[in-house]
């Protein structure tokens, strides 16, 4: 037991540098056979500190997901570069954890087996994950509040619980960076609010850097240390707003004047661009 905690601590120390994300003049152009090339992302430059919670906010088609895919190494940028923990993502020791809009669990695997999936993938992966990783996976399921559901199939879990399994899965490889693509947009309002608090707790406990894509202004403000406001055609970051809110978030914050002011500020940033586009 002690050995695991020591390991965990050394990992947390490694995370100090490991959690930074440097995005340098990243652009992405999609070339289609039948039509003109589409500039999906236009020269995005920003740096994200270790342990920071950054939301990418904007309407659909603004390149949020493209930017996330570039950071995850799922697609390569046409121009520019991304460094995760100081190295190009392709050379990083572990792939960043990813959570999508849908939990995308394998229906024939139990919650535990689903969480273990990343350990079985990759060129150097063992055929079966070892005991230590399985203990990690159990611990992660406890962390996301599913300690009693390890042997359930996805079908037996609610939507919110399935998404918790997906979060546990994303944390299995101990990547200090967690990338989330509208992870709660398919959940009902109550579950979503609960998941927000859970996510912030997990982020603190694991000292994660989180990049969170959303089109919901309230969600963005509630969760973020910093919001990158994006607009479409071509997708670019038009505002970089640091939230003037206490780091510890609670439900009470939502009704507060400070929260309302931040929502207004973000909305203003979006409408300014809107109006400019109209002209």
């Amino acid at each position, binding site marked *: 037991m002690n050995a695991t905690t020591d390991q965990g601590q050394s990992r947390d120390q490694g995370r100090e540098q490991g959690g930074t994300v440097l995005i340098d003049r990243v652009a992405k152009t999609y070339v289609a056979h039948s039509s003109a090339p589409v500039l999906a992302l236009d020269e995005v430059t920003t740096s994200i500190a270790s342990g920071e919670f950054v939301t990418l906010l904007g309407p659909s088609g603004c390149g949020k997901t493209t930017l996330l895919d570039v950071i995850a190494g799922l697609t390569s940028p046409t121009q520019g570069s991304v460094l995760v923990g100081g190295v190009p993502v392709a050379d990083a020791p572990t792939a960043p954890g990813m959570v999508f809009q849908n939990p995308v669990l394998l229906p024939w695997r139990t919650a535990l087996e689903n969480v273990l999936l990343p350990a079985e993938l990759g060129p150097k992966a063992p055929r079966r994950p070892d005991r230590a990783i399985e203990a990690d996976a159990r611990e992660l399921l406890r962390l996301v509040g599913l300690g009693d559901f390890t042997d359930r199939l996805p079908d037996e879990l609610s939507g919110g619980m399935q998404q918790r399994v997906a979060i546990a899965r994303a944390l299995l*490889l101990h990547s200090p960076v967690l990338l989330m693509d509208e992870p709660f947009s398919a959940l009902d309002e109550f579950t979503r609010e609960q998941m927000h608090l859970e996510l912030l707790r997990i982020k603190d406990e694991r000292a994660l850097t989180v990049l969170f894509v959303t089109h919901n202004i309230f969600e963005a403000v509630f969760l973020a240390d910093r919001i990158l406001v994006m607009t479409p055609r071509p997708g670019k970051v038009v505002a970089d707003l640091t939230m003037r809110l206490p780091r510890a978030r609670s439900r009470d914050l939502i009704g507060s004047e400070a929260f309302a002011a931040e929502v207004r500020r973000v909305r203003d940033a979006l409408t300014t661009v809107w109006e400019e586009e109209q002209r």
Partner: protein
Amino acid sequence: MTGIQNPRTGAASGTAGGARGRSGPAARLLSGLPGGLGHLAVLAGVLVVWQLLVEVGLLPESIMPTPVQIAAEFGAALHSIATGGYVLGHFVTTIQEVVVAFAASTALGVGVGALISEFRWVRRYAMPYVVAFNAAPGVAFAPIFLVWFGFDMGSKVAMGIASGTFPILIGTVAGMGATGHQLERLMSAYRATRVQAFRKVRMSMALPYIFAGLETGIVLTVTGVVVGEFTGGSDGLGYLIVVAQESLNLSQAFAIILQLCIVSVLFHGLVVLVRRRVLFWQRDRPTRP
């Protein structure tokens, strides 16, 4: 595949009540009967009317044997099978042909289907021929198979394969493409190798579709085998139908059709049984491609 336990025990049966909806007096009378009695009542009614139509003379007996005559022939055939008589050999031959043909159909359908979905160049160069082969009426190959594979089991098995493979192949191809964009993203985010993606995800994702293909395939395999037996040779239930027809013994022909029907239903049921075991995560839902 990874060893996964907990198959669903005691899953509740699906639709129990049967169809509700608009119901006239007859439907209400039937739905008042418990369980399968309604079905039995309808069947009995049809048989009685059929029997009467022949006995009254509205249907000539030489064209349409009565249910009683067919039942007698069927009973005689069952007796013959049970006592190792004349029918048994033919019955066993047909069963053997179906089993061999279906095993080969499954291997061929899943194998070629997987190759087609995994390799773009295989898809490009093989798919047109697969589609063309399927578009050609399978029955038309029967005389050629007779020349190629002889009058024994070979030609019948070949007919079974020619008929049963296509739905399995198409099911496999459809299933392999059913993984979904998000899951593909997840697999590449975790740098899954091609073999890992195939073994751990795509194959299992395809299983519901493959089973849908198998359920169609088994029935078509039986059909193909029987057509093969019509075409040549002197063995199998299909051959017995031809013999009955040549001696104008239609009640015997009907009795054999009834046997084939039962064989087909049993094989299909076996496939469904295996599907329920394998796709334990799908509970009692029907295949849902």
